[in-house]
């Protein structure tokens, strides 16, 4: 758990996002002079979609545009309050039928990791979440040669306000055997029409894909697809890891809204400090 409690973390995020949320929803619609509710997708000088900006107006699972009610959208729980969101959020996520399918010889390992998740999940020991668990970025800086992904680190995204540098210059991957396995790997980007496709290899085998004991091998290959339509950014990742998975895991897409406030900024995340583990009395893993 994080900075004393995950609740504190999520409430911190909630405060940040709530403060920023009302403005973009209004502006996104008002700024469209053509009369259509959906805004056009701005483009950069080289003709590609302009991904620059803060994409932190909402963070939700699923390919839908979320409710404007922050609590309902971000902290789903049985009664729409904060009281049970931590437990309920975990239950809702576990009910999702979209899971990675491991080879039968790993089923027991996955189950054991899951059952001991509070100790085995690296993000619970303040380790980084890594790709793809760190999800879509909160801010994108796009130049002709590279794209920066900047992250703030709430809840299950692990330690630190991290960044990724994604070269767009057409270079090839370093051979896998020459890469030290890392949490973020080596990412290369290219445009597939209007979709940014990020190809990442060179991982360690320490990170997890999500709760549930979803480990992976060093041969994992992650493909992220990022697409802007109006002021919505859709991020979707696919995990290929034939060493441990029966077939690639096509993760649920996530949609983020652009923060329309040009002066909006990313709130610094409190550093991760592990203080809860020794106080946990059950193996329930949020």
């Amino acid at each position, binding site marked *: 758990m994080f900075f004393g409690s995950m609740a504190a973390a999520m409430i911190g995020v909630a405060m940040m996002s709530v403060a920023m949320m009302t403005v973009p929803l209004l502006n996104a619609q008002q700024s469209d002079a053509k009369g259509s509710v959906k805004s056009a997708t701005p483009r950069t000088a080289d003709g590609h979609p302009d991904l620059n900006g803060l994409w932190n107006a909402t963070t939700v699972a699923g390919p839908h545009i979320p409710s404007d009610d922050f609590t309902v959208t971000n902290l789903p729980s049985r009664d729409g309050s904060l009281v049970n969101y931590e437990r309920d959020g975990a239950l809702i996520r576990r009910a999702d039928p979209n899971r990675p399918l491991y080879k039968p010889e790993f089923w027991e390992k996955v189950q054991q990791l899951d059952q001991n998740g509070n100790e085995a999940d690296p993000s619970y020991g*303040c380790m980084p979440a890594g790709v793809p668990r760190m999800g879509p970025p909160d801010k994108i800086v796009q*130049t002709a040669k590279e794209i920066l992904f900047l992250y703030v680190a709430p809840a299950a995204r692990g330690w630190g306000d991290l960044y990724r*540098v994604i*070269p767009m*210059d057409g270079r090839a991957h370093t051979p896998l055997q020459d890469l030290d396995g890392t949490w973020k790997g080596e990412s290369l980007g290219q445009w597939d029409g209007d979709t940014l496709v990020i190809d990442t290899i060179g991982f360690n085998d320490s990170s997890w894909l999500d709760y549930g004991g979803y480990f992976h091998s060093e041969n994992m290959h992650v493909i992220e697809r990022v697409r802007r339509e109006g002021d919505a950014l859709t991020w979707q990742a696919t995990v290929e890891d034939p060493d441990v998975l029966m077939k690639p895991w096509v993760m649920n897409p996530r949609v983020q809204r652009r923060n329309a406030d040009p002066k909006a900024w990313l709130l610094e995340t409190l*550093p991760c400090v592990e203080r809860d583990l020794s106080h946990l009395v059950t193996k329930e893993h949020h």
Partner: protein
Amino acid sequence: MTHRFFARLFLRGSIAAGIVFAGPALAQTSANARPNSNSTPNLSGVWNGAVPARVLASGEKVGLLLQAREGTLVNFERDNAIIRRMDPNKPIYRPELWEKVQKLDQDGNNEDPSYACMPLGVPRMGPPTKIVQTREELIFLYAGPQDTYRVVFIDGRGHTPLKDLDGTWRGESIGHWEGDTMVVDTIGFNDTSWLDIGGYFHSENMRVIERLHRTGNTLTWQATVEDPDVLVKPWVMNERELRLNPDAKAALEETLPCSERDLSHLVTKEHH
């Protein structure tokens, strides 16, 4: 030792960088590169070129950062701390705080926040490893000792009033050009971070002015700490120089995450 061994190694190295380096000249362009459409200097690039390797008698390559009495790794940690403590350029605290500084210093292994995997914060995190410059902002990327970023607004906005800012490790940074020098003004700090080893704490009213100047393929970074609550006068920190990495495909190496494992095994109060 563990990850922290290397984290500290890099930390100490980067703090000593500006003074220590006298590396071979890299391929240089004589004029400062400028973006095409305006007249401000272009600070974009990977600025880690100032870490030349030195080959030891053993054939081992080490950075010049690791200064030690016989040029080996054996004593570098202790020797580097001694070298840094010999530097006469120190923050001058108000007399009533001298005892506090000394106590923090003497118990540095427990008190120094960076030893518990906390962020370094500004200005201790030093100059960035990579800069990406746009019209509206400078992105500072740091590769080690802790990978993180700063966003410096250069769009002419003013600071948020200090009372409305939650104190953070990195504060709120606003930049502007003074001639060809980028001046980054930062307020809004917590009072948890230190300025350096030595018990150099600060207050929440600290203000840090960083000056970045590019000359050819050399970047000079210099920070001044203003904190009248605790300092007798502003602390003008030593300049550091960084070289542009001429490799257009140079990538930043990912730093191992910090994991505190050593503290319980330390048997002296010596603080590196």
